[in-house]
């Protein structure tokens, strides 16, 4: 009896195995990701911009890098295989652009050297080499990393909002524009604006609850 059972189990396993193979085959035929370059600026510009600012610490350079990324994306759109999502693909290009940027500004050999200058404002005596080492008890660096990730998580959620709501939210919260200016620019009345802000904020709290920590 046990021998038959064993065979039976084996049969089952074969069955499962062959099933998974056909499933895998189906997977390959599934429609893959596609590129929609005309929506790039609206959908990803802010996300990429935040990513770049975190790495080059200069808004103007970051803006140029984002633009170059879109441009490079357009040029190599035919090489896009559809394995990664659109944004992941663009981020990968942006990463190369950031590296290229640092290569460019460090192109002269001398600039590539690591120089340690003793802080001119303090006394030049003492264990200066030891003082250059990062403080192991400092939370500052972790905070910076965490805040950058938080910023990207917020932008991710903002990009999921309806276009007008995300626009109003960005103008009000990020660019700090006054209610009056926004109303003039978008041709809406203040109560309309506050309704949109309310909806955007409620949706954001819900989204961040899923993608970040409990609010």
């Amino acid at each position, binding site marked *: 009896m046990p021998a038959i059972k064993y065979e039976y189990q084996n049969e089952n396993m074969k069955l499962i195995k062959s099933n998974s193979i056909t499933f895998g085959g189906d997977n390959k035929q599934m429609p893959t990701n596609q590129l929609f370059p005309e929506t*790039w600026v609206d959908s990803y510009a*802010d996300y990429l911009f935040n990513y770049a600012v975190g790495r080059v610490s200069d808004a103007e350079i970051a*803006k140029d890098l984002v633009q170059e990324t879109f441009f490079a994306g357009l040029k190599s759109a035919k090489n896009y295989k559809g394995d990664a999502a659109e944004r992941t693909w663009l981020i990968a290009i942006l990463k190369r652009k950031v590296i290229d940027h640092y290569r460019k500004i460090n192109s002269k050999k001398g600039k590539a050297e690591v120089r340690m200058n003793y802080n001119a404002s303090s006394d030049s005596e003492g264990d200066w080499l030891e003082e250059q080492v990062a403080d192991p008890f400092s939370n500052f660096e972790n905070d910076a990393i965490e805040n950058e990730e938080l910023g990207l998580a917020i932008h991710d959620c903002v990009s999921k909002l309806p276009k007008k709501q995300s626009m109003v939210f960005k103008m009000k*919260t990020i660019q700090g524009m006054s209610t009056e200016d926004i109303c003039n620019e978008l041709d809406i009345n203040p109560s309309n604006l506050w309704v949109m802000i309310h909806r955007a*904020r409620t949706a954001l709290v819900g989204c961040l609850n899923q993608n970040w920590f409990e609010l």
Partner: protein
Amino acid sequence: MTSCEKAAVICNKAQYNEASFLDKLKLRFHLFACKNCTVHSEKNAKLTSICEKAKLRSLSEQEKVLMKEFLKKES
């Protein structure tokens, strides 16, 4: 007594420092009585604080339009 809808509007205005003193007073009274709005108000304030903490940046609409034009021209 202020309605929950009005309280929500005041709460949102308060996040951008645009609520008047009287509005804030009304909101306080409402929150004293309404538990749901208290929860909402706390979450809303938390959202404001994390938005500040994250030092969000974005490109202005104008910059985006310029970027779009550039890409259209180059492609």
